[in-house]
């Protein structure tokens, strides 16, 4: 039973206010969003910070939902579960997700995220406009190719990411987005 206390200590140490691990669906997304919203409402969080956190959470959660079935097709073991966490510290919210992806996506994601991180506020705005205008329709998964760009814009910070190989087919993709709680003048 010690793992319960260990898990609890980890959550407290990392200021995690919400952790969900398992299968991700639109229904789960709505529940997780509702919990985070209630939590932020309860402490009277600033509405603009609340909106940014909500925004990043949606893109993060819907990304996981959209790509979950790709893993099921290729790997029928227990690798299709993902994790989503929200941490709240004095000066920031930290939204993290971890989910398995197929290895053929790693390079594309790395390049895309690195490109996003190389852009400043104005560059991200132009990139967003460029993608929304020139991408014809949505992907087969219903994505607009704008999720990470939007997360970076709402965050105002670099996106942090990592890929941990699981086996020859899949890797674990971790993504961390920070939303500062200090209201900035711009």
């Amino acid at each position, binding site marked *: 039973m010690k793992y319960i206390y260990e898990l609890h200590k980890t959550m407290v140490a990392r200021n995690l206010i919400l952790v969900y691990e398992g299968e991700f669906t639109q229904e789960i997304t709505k529940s997780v969003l509702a919990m985070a919203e209630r939590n932020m409402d309860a402490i009277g969080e600033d509405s603009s910070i609340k909106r940014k956190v909500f925004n990043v959470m949606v893109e993060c959660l819907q990304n996981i939902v959209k790509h979950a079935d790709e893993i099921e097709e290729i790997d029928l073991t227990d690798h299709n579960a993902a994790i989503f966490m929200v941490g709240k510290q004095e000066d920031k919210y930290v939204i993290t997700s971890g989910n398995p992806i197929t290895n053929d996506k790693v390079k594309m994601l790395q390049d895309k995220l690195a490109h996003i991180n190389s852009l400043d506020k104005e560059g991200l705005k132009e990139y967003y406009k460029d993608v929304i205008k020139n991408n014809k*329709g*949505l992907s087969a998964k219903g994505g607009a190719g704008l999720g990470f760009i939007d997360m970076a814009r709402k965050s105002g910070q670099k996106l942090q990411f990592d890929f941990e190989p699981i086996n020859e087919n899949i890797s674990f993709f971790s993504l961390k987005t920070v939303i500062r709680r200090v209201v900035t003048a711009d």
Partner: protein
Amino acid sequence: MEILTRDGGEDTPKVILDHNNGFFEISGRSLPEDSADFYGPILEWLDKYKDSPRPETEFNFKLEYFNTASSKLILDILSKLESIDGAKVVWYYHEDDEDMQEAGQEFADLVDVSFDFKTY
């Protein structure tokens, strides 16, 4: 023309498209699981409306939140409005919601339709 309405939900916006009364509005939250599926009927409705539009079409967007997949479909709606004579957009945003104001300005830059900005 038949009125197109959708009750707003937790993840879908409220929609009213009413030719007879000249009222066109999408409001609330938009993060549907399948945004192409949700917005499809709206785009089809506008295709029909284009054949016999009112002299003026004031299309209200009063969104509290929309995800990136919805933003692509919102751009599709705006592109339809481009080809309707006398169409314009009224973009509502909460007075302290700069991100929503900026989102409206970006859409305005992308299409050839006149935008009015109002706070609520």
